[in-house]
């Protein structure tokens, strides 16, 4: 197996097309983004003091006022820390006027339920407000359930929620998020999904009905599963090295502030690489399709998913979130982007973990599908 891995590595490293698309392309496109968006390294977008109106039509739910208070006040008046929210008004009419003028990022309504109104073409700041509210609502449901089942523990639960709110607030304030950095998140997601090209050839080169090379391998005594695994190990290794070199170039040479530690980038790169290769392996394993068609499907998948996660248009993910949020929960490109985004903006690893879990499920499904399709040793026709 080591001999096969060694030669697969040589083969991939010498393949100029592979090197270009997996390392050259993100480096070139990253540089173009960098030039197009100006010197991002120096830009410091302020995501504090987001102007928000809170309209209370009914009594607020338990903990809501504490959360709003925590997010709209600083701990220390001498501190340079600014609060996340600036509660501009609690008057509905005035709030509407301010929103029309573009001076308000969100109106939070409390009317038995908690709802949100954001201006047309809502941006990152509105997204931050939405995420904070979503987080609160999910915790509120947990607390409500706990209040019924364990009312004696309510003080501890509320205290825990307050701590959580403070955590969100402090992390949100310290996050160094630039609105253009999401293009770089998308770039890494796309580079990860481009691994599908290698995954596809990995599958094709090991099946007698798809290539002469596959036939030569299949008539040898090596196990088919072991052979594909050795190939996948080599492609994953190369892909990750390329991805991490490209990432290091973006972070350390161009100075792009991803807002996350580099080890997180390495972990997410690994996952996106596994996902890309699994996707390619799956498409490559489909019998009866020509290589050109498989290539076209892969390219459409990679670019399409990246487009929907905001590669070409930054507001796309938010648009999808408003109209079809489930898609953002299952779109692998959006999940990869969200791993960076959520950690950068909210400082929370919780979202990353759930995203990673979904990505792993994707990988497992795609690899299982590939194995089912390729497990046959004999073919009806070649």
């Amino acid at each position: 197996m080591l001999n096969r891995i060694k030669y697969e590595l040589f083969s991939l490293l010498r393949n100029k097309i592979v090197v270009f698309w997996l390392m050259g392309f993100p480096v070139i496109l990253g540089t173009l983004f960098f030039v197009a968006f100006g010197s991002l390294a120096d830009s410091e977008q302020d995501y504090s003091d987001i102007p928000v109106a809170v309209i209370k039509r009914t009594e607020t739910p338990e903990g809501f006022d504490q959360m709003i208070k925590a997010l709209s006040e600083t701990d220390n008046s001498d501190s340079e820390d600014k609060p996340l929210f600036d509660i501009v008004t609690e008057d509905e009419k005035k709030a509407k006027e301010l929103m029309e003028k573009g001076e308000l990022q969100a109106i939070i309504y409390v009317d038995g339920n908690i709802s949100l109104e954001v201006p047309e073409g809502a941006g990152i700041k509105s997204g931050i407000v939405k995420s904070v509210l979503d987080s609160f609502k999910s915790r509120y449901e947990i607390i409500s359930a706990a209040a019924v089942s364990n009312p004696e523990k309510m003080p501890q639960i509320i205290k825990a929620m307050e701590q959580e709110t403070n955590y969100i607030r402090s992390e949100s304030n310290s996050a160094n998020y630039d609105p253009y950095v999401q293009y770089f998140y998308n770039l890494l997601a796309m580079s990860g999904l481009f691994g599908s090209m290698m995954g596809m050839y990995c599958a094709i080169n090991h099946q007698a009905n798809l290539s002469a090379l596959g036939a030569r391998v299949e008539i040898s005594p090596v196990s088919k599963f072991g052979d594909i695994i050795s190939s996948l190990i080599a492609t994953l290794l190369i892909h990750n090295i390329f991805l991490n070199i490209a990432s290091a170039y973006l972070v350390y040479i161009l100075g792009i502030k991803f807002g996350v530690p580099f080890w997180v980038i390495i972990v997410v790169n690994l996952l996106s690489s596994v996902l890309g290769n699994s996707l390619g392996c799956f498409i490559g394993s489909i019998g009866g399709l020509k290589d050109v068609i498989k290539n076209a499907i892969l390219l459409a998948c990679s670019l399409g998913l990246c487009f929907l996660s905001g590669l070409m248009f930054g507001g796309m993910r938010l648009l999808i979130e408003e109209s079809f949020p489930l898609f953002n929960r299952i779109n692998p490109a959006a999940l990869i982007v969200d791993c960076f985004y959520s950690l950068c903006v909210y400082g929370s690893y919780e979202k990353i973990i759930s995203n990673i879990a979904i990505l792993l499920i994707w990988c497992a499904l795609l690899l299982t599908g590939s194995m089912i399709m390729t497990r046959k040793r004999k073919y009806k026709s070649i």
Partner: protein
Amino acid sequence: METVVKVERLVKRYKELIALDHLELDIKEGEIFGLLGPNGSGKTTAINCILSLLTYDKGEISVFGKKLCAEVKRNIGVVMQNVAVLNELNVRENIDYFCGLYISDKALRKQRVDEAIAFAGLEGFEKFRPKKLSGGLLRRLNIACGIAHKPKLIIMDEPTVAVDPQSRNRILEGIEELNRQGATIIYTSHYMEEVEQICSRIAIIDKGRNIAEGTKQELKKLIKNTETISVEAAGLTDEQIDAARSMPHVYECRYDGKALTLLYSGGKHNLTRLLDYMHNEEIPMGRVYSLLPTLNDVFLEITGKELRD
């Protein structure tokens, strides 16, 4: 001699098309067994079934007396019709990669790779990548990749397609050398002279059936023609042509105004008899040819002359 490959009543269908129709083959140890047949006759399908790449509808196949398994596969080498090498690896690396599928011991593999390079005449090209090789060298690399692990059974599916005569000769000599070293070889080709040159036994397949099998001599006995004599002679009269036609063992006589061609079925001294007649009649003659039947004649007579796909 022990049987190396035995195919019994093999049937393979592609929907309505019967690719193999109760095919029978019995290939003995130490043979170079030629598999001949027109396009679409079922040669490659038969090989793919033997190699267990294709499913089949009926029949039995055994290799070295067993069903194909990893242990049996270790002793099989295949040279595919299409060149199957990795374009990013050089000659030595390619041979080592494919040899590594059979031999894990590094030292033994190195020895085998060196031998394969020498055998295929690829010395001096070890560092070349496939794209830098000529068509002949590429074919030789393809062969080296298939035989480097020294298999006991080598299956070669048209290994000399699109190869120049020099490279072809080199390949054929190599195949004979492999056979001398003890390998049993199954060889398919469209080139009759190749098969005639190297194969000890030949099967002619048509429409999925084994329609003739034997040595070259045995196959040649299956057809009517035993000798073809052609004499350049202008201005023969009808009487002279009729006289030639009525000579013993002549079954066909053609005259185009310049040359007389007689096809014989058996008989001895046919040429002497014809030349005596021409001499007695004082017919001026140019060049005289006497041709024995070739495998090509056998092939065309058995499989017919109509075009195939």
